[in-house]
């Protein structure tokens, strides 16, 4: 059986190549869709893992906690709200404020974290470090950077990074998460506050005037808030809003829904691209397999003349189609991966990754290809066995 399949496959080189191209198209487009889906899912997971609070008003703070100042007194008040498990003051700033913030999904951000407080985010208790280590309490002028940020600047643990005229030592590089932290520069909150003052002329003027009583610990753009086990995060968020004056509270489920709405266009686009890839790739694959079977109609007529029954012939056609589709599918996957990895190698120099070859995409595409190939072969086989052997030989000889 294996010998005859191997023999049969030799005659299917162009069919396998045709299938490979169709499958490669599906996988490549699917991998781009997967990449964006992972980005959106990552953001969703993040916002559902914490309650994000900012000071009321508008400021230069960026990200989910955009808003005005969140002074230490407000943070203390939040800590006392029933159901709150932990509050981590944060400063989130655009790395380069002069850059347009239109595409905030890919913006490079400085995230200052109060390292004396454990991360309250239920989904990101720690951020996974690929090289080096994460920041520890007491670390100053040290940074942990996202994978894309590191690649785009050629940074690694031990490298130096200049931020607002100050040299920072890179102590760790995060795993590639394919979501926002890939472009983060994480520092101690004290360092982030220094950078904020350095970046914001208005804040410097206000502080220099002495007109407002501000301490260093009042300089927060927001806080990540955790909730106790068994509490409903939305209820806790509303409680904070009701009990603490002068804060902007993001309700986790509302923020998640907002995020999904803002990415709905991309999601719809991806579904469209994915469907189109499956339809075009699927039609190409089915057509190639069916054509390959019909091409051998004379051979099947001869085999029936020699005593092959419908069942024997059908089994043989199906086995060949499965082997051909599986070979073409595997080749297509390899082709798409080679193409994707090549492009990512080039795009990676600027910190981009365009493709995500997830196991569900690869497995799903192979299963889809094999099922479609089998269906196309079964259709062709049914058409062929209905013909008399003489007619099959006649048609095959005339072709």
């Amino acid at each position, binding site marked *: 059986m294996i010998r005859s399949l191997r023999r049969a496959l030799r005659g299917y080189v162009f069919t396998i190549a045709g299938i490979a191209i169709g499958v490669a198209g599906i996988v490549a487009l699917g991998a781009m869709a997967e990449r964006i889906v992972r980005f959106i899912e990552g953001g969703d997971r993040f916002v559902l893992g914490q309650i994000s609070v900012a000071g009321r008003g508008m400021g230069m703070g960026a990200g989910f906690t955009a808003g005005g100042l969140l002074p230490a007194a407000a943070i203390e008040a939040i800590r006392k709200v029933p159901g709150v498990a932990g509050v981590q003051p944060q400063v989130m700033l655009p790395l380069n404020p002069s850059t347009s913030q239109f595409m905030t999904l890919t913006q490079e951000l400085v995230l200052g974290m109060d390292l004396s407080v454990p991360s309250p985010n239920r989904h990101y208790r720690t951020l996974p470090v690929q090289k080096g280590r994460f920041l520890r309490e007491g670390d100053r002028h040290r940074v942990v950077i996202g994978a894309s940020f590191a690649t785009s600047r050629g940074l690694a643990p031990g490298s130096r990074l200049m931020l607002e005229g100050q040299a920072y030592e890179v102590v760790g590089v995060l795993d590639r998460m394919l979501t926002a932290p890939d472009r983060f520069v994480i520092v101690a909150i004290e360092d982030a506050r220094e950078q904020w003052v350095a970046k914001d002329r208005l804040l410097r003027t206000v502080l220099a005037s002495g007109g407002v009583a501000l301490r260093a610990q009042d300089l927060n753009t927001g806080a990540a808030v955790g909730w106790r086990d068994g509490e409903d995060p939305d209820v806790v968020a509303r409680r904070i809003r009701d009990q603490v004056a002068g804060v902007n509270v993001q309700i986790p489920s509302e923020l998640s829904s907002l995020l999904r709405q803002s990415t709905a266009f991309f999601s719809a686009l991806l579904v469209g691209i994915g469907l189109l890839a499956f339809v075009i790739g699927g039609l190409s694959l089915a057509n190639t397999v069916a054509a390959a079977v019909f091409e051998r109609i004379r*051979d099947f007529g001869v085999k029936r*003349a*020699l005593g092959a029954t419908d069942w*024997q012939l059908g089994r043989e056609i199906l086995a060949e189609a499965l082997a051909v589709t599986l070979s073409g599918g595997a080749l297509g996957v390899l082709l798409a991966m080679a193409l994707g990895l090549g492009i990512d190698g080039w795009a990676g120099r600027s910190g981009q990754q365009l493709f995500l070859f997830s196991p569900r995409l690869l497995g799903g595409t192979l299963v889809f290809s094999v099922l479609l190939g089998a269906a196309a072969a079964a259709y062709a086989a049914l058409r062929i066995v209905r013909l008399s052997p003489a*007619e099959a030989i006649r048609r095959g000889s005339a072709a």
Partner: protein
Amino acid sequence: MPPEPVLHARGLVKRFAAPSGPPIEVLAGAELTVQRGELVVIEGPSGSGKSTLLNVLGLLEDADAGEVRFGERTVSALGRGAKSRERGRWLGFVFQSFLLLPSLTALDNVLLAARYTTGVDAERRRRAMILLERFGVAERRDHHPAQLSGGEQQRVAFCRAVLNDPPLLLADEPTGNLDDANGAAILTALRDRARSGGAVIVVSHRPDAARGADAVFTLERGRLQPR
């Protein structure tokens, strides 16, 4: 005791739809009986329906009316699967255009006759090699049809036809694509086959095909007329 008929056909009618007008009746009540060890040659002008008759006798095509029996069994009314099994059990085919499978070697083409019937075992392989040797193509056993001459291809096709030692051999213009020497060799092989006890029906244009035949018929107006 009368000799045992291998094939008996009676009242065979076959019509084909015409582009316009009434259907064309190619077979109009053709009758034929072939005994073991008998070589029957069927002649007739091109388009007279010789190949259609052979297709109907070989269960490659259904007749519109009439009956075909192999031995004692009526096979023309069987279903597709049963007809395939009867073909594998009773018949060997030699076609004008050889009809070897291009993806298979000469040896594998011969063994194809066993693949769907007895199965390919060591005994079948041994027999296939003996046949290829007898017909002078053993050295070409690993060659594909495209690498063989027409004469070699027809000899391989003949080996395939007789591998299972079928009771009846049907040869449709077996020398049509061959030169004189190769054609003569194939006709000799067919005669030898009949002499060794097999029944053989040959459709041929060649005048020398009828030499040594036990019966010669001409297909005229859809019926077989003894010559």
